[in-house]
């Protein structure tokens, strides 16, 4: 049985707005579980109802077999890390981290040892006596992390903890969070809208949209095998192919068929680029087109190609000096057979057998 389960969680704001609409998740012990989605998708609402800061309209939350909804928030024993750090400005770094140990009646000597250990884990051991006001965002969030971990909570919740930090620090700190979480082995629910962060940090990802779950799976499943068009577009990028004779021709050549398909799409990095007039085979079709725009990004380049299938972006890895393309240059876009994905009118992924 799962460690944390949420069943049919529903949260209604006002008369009509459903922030959560029948959400069910199950998180294992020690698992790093990420709620991913655009703002307003309900991920923070779900996190806050697990923490107890807002109650569900309907649904059940159980932690380790016991009903969590009847427990007041301050007795849930759940650590939380906040987007705005929520570090107490009038307390020193040490007192911030020790704050949660006091109501737990931990002896003073043990408090000292545990706080020191927690501060060392987040590399703030030397700053214990400082006041947090003048410290950087990254340091403040480390305090927040140590403060949540030191109470050895039954569950750790993180609400976009890195979104106020700059890009480089974000990557650095997310690695640290991942390492510490594995070390202490606490089940963690992490909320983010950053797909790269979710892929990098999670054991499993739950992609949410408009109060519902789109897909739950490992990062590989989410990225490599998206089950809905929303997931495919939100995690990674997508070229949606223009319907018409050219698309039908392409699918016929590749022998792909999906009854009820409303749209077909391809990932830019799965496409190839070749000189004009390249030959098509059973497993690969060359679509002729002309270059509309070339964007060089260092470790990759994006080539926008005007084709009968519409504008298609092809991502070229490790572009050398020679990879540069001129606008108007005729090229072929290579579409391998296993690349096109079909989606039904409701956005669900369809099998492309045939």
């Amino acid at each position, binding site marked *: 049985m799962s460690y944390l389960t949420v069943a049919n969680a529903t949260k209604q704001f006002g008369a009509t707005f459903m922030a959560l609409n029948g959400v069910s998740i199950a998180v294992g012990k020690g698992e790093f579980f990420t709620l991913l989605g655009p703002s307003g998708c309900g991920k923070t609402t779900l996190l806050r109802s697990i923490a*107890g800061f807002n109650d569900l309209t309907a649904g059940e939350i159980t932690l380790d077999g016991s009903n969590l909804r009847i427990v007041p928030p*301050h007795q849930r024993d759940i650590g939380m890390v906040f987007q705005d750090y929520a570090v107490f400005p009038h307390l020193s770094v040490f007192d911030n981290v020790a*704050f949660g140990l006091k*109501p*737990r009646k931990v002896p003073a000597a043990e408090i000292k040892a545990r706080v020191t250990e927690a501060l060392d884990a987040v590399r703030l051991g030397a700053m214990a006596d400082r006041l947090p006001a003048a410290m950087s965002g990254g340091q403040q969030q480390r305090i927040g992390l140590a403060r*949540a971990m030191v*109470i050895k909570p039954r569950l750790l919740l993180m609400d976009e903890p890195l979104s106020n930090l700059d890009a480089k620090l974000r990557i650095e700190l997310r690695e640290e969070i991942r390492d510490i979480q594995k070390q202490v082995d606490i089940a963690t629910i992490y909320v983010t809208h950053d797909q790269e962060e979710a892929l990098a940090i999670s054991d499993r990802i739950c992609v949410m949209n408009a109060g519902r779950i789109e897909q739950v799976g490992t990062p590989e499943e989410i990225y490599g095998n998206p089950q809905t068009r929303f997931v495919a577009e939100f995690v990674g990028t997508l070229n949606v192919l223009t319907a018409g004779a050219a698309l039908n021709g392409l699918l016929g050549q590749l022998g792909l068929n999906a009854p009820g398909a409303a749209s077909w799409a391809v990932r830019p990095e799965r496409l190839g680029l070749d000189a004009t007039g390249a030959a098509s085979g059973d497993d690969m079709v060359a679509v002729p087109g002309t270059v509309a725009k070339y964007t060089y990004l260092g470790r990759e380049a994006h080539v926008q190609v005007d084709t009968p299938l519409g504008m298609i972006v092809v991502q070229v890895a490790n572009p050398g000096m020679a990879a540069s393309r001129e606008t108007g240059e005729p090229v072929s876009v290579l579409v391998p057979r296993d690349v096109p994905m079909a989606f039904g009118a409701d956005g669900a992924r369809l099998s492309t057998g045939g």
Partner: protein
Amino acid sequence: MPRLNFWTVVMVLTWLLLFVLLFIPVGSVLVSSLYDQSGNFTLANYAKFLTEPRFRVAFLNTLIVGVGGMAGALLLGSIMAFCVSRFVIGGGKFVSLLAILALVSPPFIGAYSWIVLFGAGGVVRGFLRDMGINMPPIYGVGGILVVFSLKFYPYVYLMVSGALSNVNRSLEEAAEGLGLTPWQRTFRISFPMVFPALTAGGLLALIHAIADFGTPRLLGRGFNVLATEAFTLYSAEVGSNMSMATTISVVLILVSMVFVMLQRYMSRRNVYHGNMINKPTRIQLNGWRNWLAHFGVYFIGLCGAMPVIVSVIYSFRKTNGPVFQEGFALQSYQRILFNLGDVVRNSLTFSIAAVILIVLVGTVVGVLVARRTNLNTALLDGAFMVPYVMPGIVIGIAFIAAFNTGPIVLTGTATIIILSIFIRRLPYTVRTTASSLRQISPSMEEAAVSLGYSPFQAFLRITVPMIVPGIIAGGMLSFVTAINELSSSLVLYVGSTMTMPVRIYLLILDGDFGTAAALSTVLLVLSGAAVYIAFRFMGRNEQALL
């Protein structure tokens, strides 16, 4: 059994408090103005107000001193703000201190000091007469405007200098890049940016000018405004006319309300918050320009602080009865010590009691307003606007109208003076508490709750320590207002509840300037100490004095 919610109780008590201390007094004023002596409903008082030249003149005079005071304050305040925030002025901190001195000294001290210098037997006037220059004495509308301009310019100065130092320098650089001359830059870029602050500060001066009682009373000499007319009608030993006094009060409330609404509207428009990456720099002026800027700033600053300086000097002068002698002595202070100890004690106890009440009630209600946002608290927030539009003299008359007879009789007690101060200053504390609470992220308390503290414990251990410095500072500033309050106390006092400002006012009327000056100095020292403590707790923030 449903638990009685703490906040519901607070809400009910707050409304009860507002009902007793605000709605009943204001209602009594309105009712009294609408009934004649024998208790019949009548609009005769208002008709009389419109037809009798005496009241028409007072009404016009009120607008004259209001607009004139505003114009003077705008002129002096914007010159000072512009020079201090744009040019290198030696001793800038000292200049700000002069502005604070002008702000915290009670206005009637200003009036009195100008009489000492420029009155019929004024020192400066006498000196000039000896040199052959004959200037008219300062009495009348001219004198009132001079005193108001010098007393209220800090409102404009503090608001405009705040706005000027927030104008992003890049905007002016962009205008420079587009080919505008310095003059064009000032008038087409900087001026529109500070215009909201300028109007808000000017209106603040205007509101204080029309509410002021002491200055026109001491300097007017036949020049009457609504506040003095209301007091005259109320206090006349023969032919005291309460219903006419309340009619004037209603008119005064309406006039103030118009300008308070306007002021709030203009303050809200003050929304040019540029990013502060490119802060404006101060220019070092050279030659005669430098001299002119320094002369302007120090002339305004010293003139504004002149009443304070004069009072302090005169408080140490040797006296014989009410007449000043050559040399210095501590006689005036001795007189306070031996004869006026009870007045000082009254002032201190009333102010401290009022401040304690203000801080306690204001903080709890501020938390209510900030944290329990629903229709009721929005109404509450609105109700707290009312004391802002009530000049002190009106509060005094309203309290007399409400508590002279009926179920609650308070006239002649210390309680009525304390409550009149309390209700005027309460809105300020509620507002500052609510706004400082709104600035604290809710995740602070949530973090404490997630760490195992109950919501109430989280509030006590996290939120309270964060807002306490602001509350103490606010309490100190309330103390300054409380201890300097003249007009409402003047209506409400009896022999045993006389306060320092009332005593000073009476001493000036009696011609005992020495004792008045010493008592004023004591008042200033107390106010100064309170401002100092406030600044220690919240950092030097002149804006909080507005």
